[in-house]
């Protein structure tokens, strides 16, 4: 019951602070600027993959490997996305600390924050930026959906880790999470490149990647829950 109640409040807080957010033009401008940089990087990448340049590059470095380039750009783009979420102006409307003295369990608060961060529309920005690539190159729709879902889960991980950083008092563990995620990313992405190259394996395994995204989120939820509940204290200590 408490869960539904607090969940409704979370949604209400977004509605009520929207005016304040609109007033904070500097924060909005800086966030848009960061995302424009991201779009610029992607646009550059798209141009580099155009026929003329591809031919030129192929003549210099060999075979045109679109997926290798797309995936290679992911780590820097995810890092940029993480920086925006970490240092950008966060949503201040829902202050979870207000609930610490009320009869609401910390676990409920942590779960609500986790769920809201998972389904945040911000997580759609990054996967959507890749949509032109996936539409330009003739991949099957299920592959596109699975790939985008994987990108979405990584973007959600970014949001959650950034949120843990803001929530927790003892923040040292956040660095470990960050390192684990970003070491994991190339390990996950390299097989994706291989899978794109070997079409037979690709179809079956791209579903596996979508499931892997869910698995990463589940693991992250366990870590998030445990660490946040343990270190969930009023922030101005």
């Amino acid at each position, binding site marked *: *019951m*408490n869960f539904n*109640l607090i969940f409704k*409040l979370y949604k*209400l*807080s977004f509605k*009520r*602070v929207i005016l304040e957010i609109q007033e904070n033009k500097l924060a909005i401008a800086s966030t848009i600027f960061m995302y424009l940089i991201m779009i610029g990087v992607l646009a550059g990448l798209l141009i580099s993959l155009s026929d003329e340049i591809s031919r030129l590059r192929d003549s210099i470095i060999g075979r045109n490997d679109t997926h290798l380039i797309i995936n290679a750009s992911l780590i820097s783009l995810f890092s940029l996305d993480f920086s925006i979420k970490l240092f950008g102006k966060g949503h201040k*409307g*829902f*202050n979870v*600390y*207000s*609930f*610490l*003295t*009320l*009869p*609401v*369990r*910390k676990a409920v608060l942590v779960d609500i924050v986790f769920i809201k961060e998972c389904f945040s529309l911000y997580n759609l920005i990054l996967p959507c930026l890749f949509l032109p690539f996936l539409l330009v190159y003739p991949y099957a729709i299920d592959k596109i959906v699975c790939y985008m879902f994987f990108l979405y889960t990584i973007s959600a991980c970014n949001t959650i880790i950034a949120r843990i950083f803001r929530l927790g*008092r003892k923040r040292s563990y956040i660095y470990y999470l960050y390192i684990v995620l970003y070491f994991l990313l190339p390990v996950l992405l390299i097989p994706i490149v291989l899978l794109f190259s070997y079409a037979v394996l690709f179809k079956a395994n791209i579903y596996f990647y979508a499931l892997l995204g869910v698995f990463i989120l589940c693991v992250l939820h366990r870590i998030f829950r445990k660490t946040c509940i343990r*270190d969930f*204290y*009023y922030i*101005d*200590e």
Partner: protein
Amino acid sequence: MIKIDNLTKYFGENKALDIKQLQIAEGSIVGLVGNNGAGKTTMLRLILDLCKANNGTVLSKGKDVSKTEDWKEYTGSFLDSGYLIDFLTAEEYFKLIAELNHITKEDMQLRLSRFDAFMNGEILGKKKLIKNYSAGNKQKIGIVAAMITNPKVLLLDEPFNFLDPSSQMEMLRLLRDLNKEFGTTMILSSHNIELVSEISSRIILLEKGLVKKDISASADEAIEELRTYFSIK
């Protein structure tokens, strides 16, 4: 009701609180006094598990507050307006408190009517968000929300701040009624030694995180002793 054992809290190198042993009996009203930085708020925060102790434990009804959250069911508190859910209106906030504490709508209305004089027509029906109220009215909203559940334990930090004299007197009456009717154990921190002595059966004087005096005397004697202590300083 509340037992503190070897409780220490450091902020960096500074020792904010160091209490060897302290027991607060059920139904007692304890006043916490001391200068700025004495550790009053830190003590309340540790009792409410809002910060982590470096050492020691706080037991509420025999259970460690950092290990269980059961104490939240019978504990009311108001430390400052930062703990209010300020994107709600006062009515919505009280409704939330009612829902969290399983209080029916009718019962809530009845309970709120007890605070009519205290709220003085400045809180309810104003159709504005809590963040847009004055400091005094935010204080009133927080105090009403803490008391309206008829808690077994009530912790208030500087409850007389921002309140006009009439509201301060009304609050004393409300606190006495709550203590008498429900046997509520209260811990009130304050700089106002007259008001806190008038309501409290016991005064704990903190100085640089240490318990300097533990006074169980009549209000006049307690005020005299505190005045002497602070004037000597």
